[in-house]
């Protein structure tokens, strides 16, 4: 009996068991839905980012300052051994790959196409991107000993009517302004799922690209892959600090800057998720409000008696607030349990979005399995909001009960 207000509140919670249980269910289902929806969104977004990053961009890219904006061959830099070492030593960097990039023209039989040439080190590139896993049957990825062998996008091959073992002519401009021309032989076709890549990209060995474009030791891009997207800023900051003293001004860009459309998509998706969350929060809050409101209404006389024997009005409102705190806390615990359980189920059994693969393929998102991902922040925020809304919505009935006139309240039977 020591804390009588809390004890009264606790017993009042269990007074109308059916109503209380219904309220718990409302909070449980509503809260669990919120946790689940957020987990699905989070898992989906993470997967999209991973896919997009794995396809080509990597988590971080280093260029000479101005390259990203201008995208011309002139913006090139040399990877210093120190930076190379620094990256090798960083435990969060799982791979980094040097790239030479240039636009060019392809000509095969009667066909001419604009292409995007990417010179890569076949072995190093495997640690950064996964194009090597997207080679169509009948072809192969580049090897270290390849020279004028290339891998091209499947759509490009189809458009020009070329197949594996065909040879085409490529013309472009070298780093020194000279003409860069080469006859290249297709050894494989890739199908990344990203229409733009599949239509334009030609992969050639870095060593060959060096001589074709007279790049010497210069590269356009150093693409870096991390163990986790979450470490982006940490690694990025380290690189920025490390390279700030270098002679050439460099730009260090994260995947979010490299793929702003993806970020935008995620933001938009988050917003629609928040709207949904908001509606669910309101449903939960009104469920609690309704319960508290009804139970307060039914107990008018009781409050009148309590007031007339010396209970202070603030004690009455404290009791009502405590009731909603108890209801909210129990509901939240159930919601966390239930929400976590369904999220976990869909983490183990990812949702298959293969029906929508066309729409999301834009970012090279070829994965159609999206595992849910439940984060601490998701659960914490859902719980906190539910709790705050529950308390906020009970302030009104609690205050009304405290303002009761005891004689009028006692008249009510």
């Amino acid at each position, binding site marked *: *009996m*020591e804390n*009588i207000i809390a004890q*009264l509140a606790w*017993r*009042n919670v269990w*007074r109308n068991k059916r109503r209380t249980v219904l309220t718990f269910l409302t909070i449980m289902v509503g809260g669990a839905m919120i946790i689940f929806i957020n987990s699905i969104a989070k898992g989906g977004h993470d997967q999209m980012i991973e896919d997009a990053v794995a396809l080509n961009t990597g988590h971080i890219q280093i260029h000479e300052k101005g390259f990203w904006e201008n995208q011309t061959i002139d913006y090139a830099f040399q990877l210093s051994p120190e930076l190379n070492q620094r990256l090798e030593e960083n435990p969060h960097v799982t791979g980094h790959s040097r790239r030479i990039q240039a636009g060019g023209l392809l000509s095969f039989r009667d066909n001419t196409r604009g292409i995007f040439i990417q010179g890569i080190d076949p072995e190093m590139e495997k640690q950064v991107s996964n194009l090597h896993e997207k080679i169509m049957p009948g072809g192969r990825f580049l090897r270290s000993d390849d020279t004028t062998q290339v891998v091209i996008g499947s759509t490009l091959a189809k458009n020009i009517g070329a197949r594996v073992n065909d040879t085409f002519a490529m013309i472009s401009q070298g780093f020194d302004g000279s003409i860069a021309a080469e006859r290249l032989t297709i050894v494989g076709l890739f199908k990344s799922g990203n229409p733009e890549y599949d239509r334009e990209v030609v992969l050639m060995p870095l060593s060959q690209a060096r001589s074709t474009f007279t790049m010497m030791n210069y590269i356009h891009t150093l693409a870096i892959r991390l163990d986790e997207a979450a470490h982006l800023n940490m690694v990025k900051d380290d690189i920025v600090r490390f390279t700030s003293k270098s002679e050439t001004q460099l730009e260090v860009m994260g995947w979010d800057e490299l793929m702003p459309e993806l970020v935008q998509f995620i933001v938009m998706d988050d917003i629609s998720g928040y709207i949904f969350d908001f509606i669910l929060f309101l449903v939960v809050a009104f469920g609690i409000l309704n319960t508290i409101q009804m139970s307060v209404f039914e107990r008018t*006389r*009781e409050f009148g*008696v*309590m*007031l*007339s*024997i*010396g*209970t*202070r*009005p603030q*004690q009455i409102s404290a009791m009502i607030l405590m009731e909603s705190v108890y209801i909210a806390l129990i509901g939240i615990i159930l919601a966390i349990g239930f929400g976590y359980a369904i999220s976990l189920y869909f983490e183990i059994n990812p949702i298959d979005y293969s029906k929508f693969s066309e729409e999301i393929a834009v970012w090279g998102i070829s994965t159609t399995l999206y595992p849910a991902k439940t984060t601490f922040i998701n659960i914490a925020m859902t719980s906190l909001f539910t709790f705050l809304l529950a308390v906020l919505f009970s302030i009104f009935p609690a205050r009304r009960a405290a303002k009761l006139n*005891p*004689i009028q309240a*006692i008249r009510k*039977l």
Partner: protein
Amino acid sequence: MNIIELENVYKNYETHGNIIPALRGVNLQIAKGEFAALAGPSGSGKTTLLNIIGGLDQPTSGSVTVGNTRLNQLSKKAISDLRLRKIGFVFQAYNLIPVLTAIENVEYVLLLQGINKKDRLTRSKDVLREVGLEKEMYRPPHELSGGQQQRVAVARAIVSSPDIVLADEPTANLDQKTGAHLLAMMRELNLREHITFLFSTHDPMVMEHSKRLINLIDGRIVSDEIHSKP
């Protein structure tokens, strides 16, 4: 020594612009140890008078003194405190907090006063024994009969040794026999513990057993008789 003193108390209620006079110049003194009944037809102002004495309602004019305290000048909090320590209330029915057992209902008042657990329990058991409920102490109100509930209410009203117990038709919801029992018990407490009682009633039996009968009609005291028989 007077526990209660009312001087020229008026009470008007206003509803929809109409003024309803509930009390019209009530003068009343109640001394310590009295066992007094307020009688009068429905609407004569009995409840209004008890509420004003208990500080639940304020008079339109006139002065009300309980113990040594003039209620007119007190803050809400002070009046609430006065009700907690100096005045016991018993209403017609549904007096108890439903989620508390009989003993907890009694203990509640002491708890609000900040009395320690040991004293609370001793005192609560004592008064419940006095009202004859030692066996029913740990039952919740819904497992008690109407008469037993009223006894718990009386126990709660007297547990903090108030100056006066105000009871508004305490027997109205009880049958004749149970009502008589309750009244006899209150009278016993009055004699044994010298607790002052003022209760309102319609019941001729109750009026008969009171030591003093105050008759109200239309908000005025029309007679005030001391009954000599015990």
